[in-house]
């Protein structure tokens, strides 16, 4: 359940960004690579828990999954996939060198004045 650590980290980043502003957080959007090993539902659950009693209590967390890209170790084709691991569409070889897809990024915070 590393999503709990991630949710705490996310909360820390939000607090740093908002500083002492008198706002409440309405929505937070993050994007994660499909190969990062983040379960969006677990992250949303953990985020709901860490937000309790804070100014982000009840905030919606939107998680966008970004396709990952690998280079096939056999034929060198670069291909996209929406999972932890992909299969080369050219030769059928599994896996390959991951070029992108393990990123976890806090995109936006939507706030309302209180």
């Amino acid at each position, binding site marked *: 359940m*590393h999503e709990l*650590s991630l949710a705490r980290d996310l909360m820390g*980043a939000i607090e740093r960004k908002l500083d002492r502003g008198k706002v409440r957080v309405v929505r937070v959007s993050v994007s994660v690579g499909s190969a990062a090993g983040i379960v969006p539902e677990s992250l949303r659950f953990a985020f709901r828990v860490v937000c309790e009693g804070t100014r982000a209590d009840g905030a919606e967390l939107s998680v966008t999954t970004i396709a990952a890209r690998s280079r096939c*170790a056999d034929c060198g084709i670069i291909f996209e996939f929406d999972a932890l691991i992909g299969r080369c569409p050219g030769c059928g070889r599994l*896996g*390959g060198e991951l070029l992108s897809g*393990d990123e976890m990024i*806090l995109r936006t915070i939507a706030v309302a004045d209180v």
Partner: protein
Amino acid sequence: MCDTCGCGISSVRTIDVNERLLASNAAQAEQNRAHFAEREILAINLMGTPGAGKTALLEAIIAKWRESRRILVIEGDQATDRDSARIRAAGAIACQVETGLGCHLAAHQIHDALHHLDLRDGDLLFIENVGNLVCPALFDLGERLRVVVTSPAEGADKPLKYPPMFRAAHLVVLNKCDLIPHVPFKLDEWTDYVRAITPHARILKTSALGGEGLGELLAEIDNVRQAFSANIFA
């Protein structure tokens, strides 16, 4: 119009952030790494399945090297100090981190543990992570070398089931290799799966108890240590 419920109150505004998550862990890890480089301390993050033999491998390494070098071990477990007691009994210096509900070690825990260790220039520092093939893969600790330990009884398809962990590894160790004839495990299949996930990682077979492959493992660590030192003084 309000984009939350359409109520007509235009008080919601969106702040663009675009920052990586775990940035604070990454910053602490970089601080740890700089500290290790400054003191020429080779830090190795040992990850893997519970029961793969991580602690037994450390005991075997300590038995070979305890006369010739200073070895320190940070032991991460959810509970108990059993592993740090084993490390001390084997002849190295140990510090136990009990993670409680935490399923992995984070960079700040390594920083905190360093305050409890008498670290000297040139030391060899092992960090035995919490036995877990999922969470530790995401958390940089400031190590130079990441080793993933697995064993035959777990099955050949572990790399396919836990890709981020094997992708994170510089070195993949199949420990308890003396079990291969006794369990349904195909070495070729396992090797293919490791290669599929991580085309460049080194792969070694060891038996912590029987001694097979330990020489290669020690040589591998020595190679990394030499490259590390050469890099520092370059």
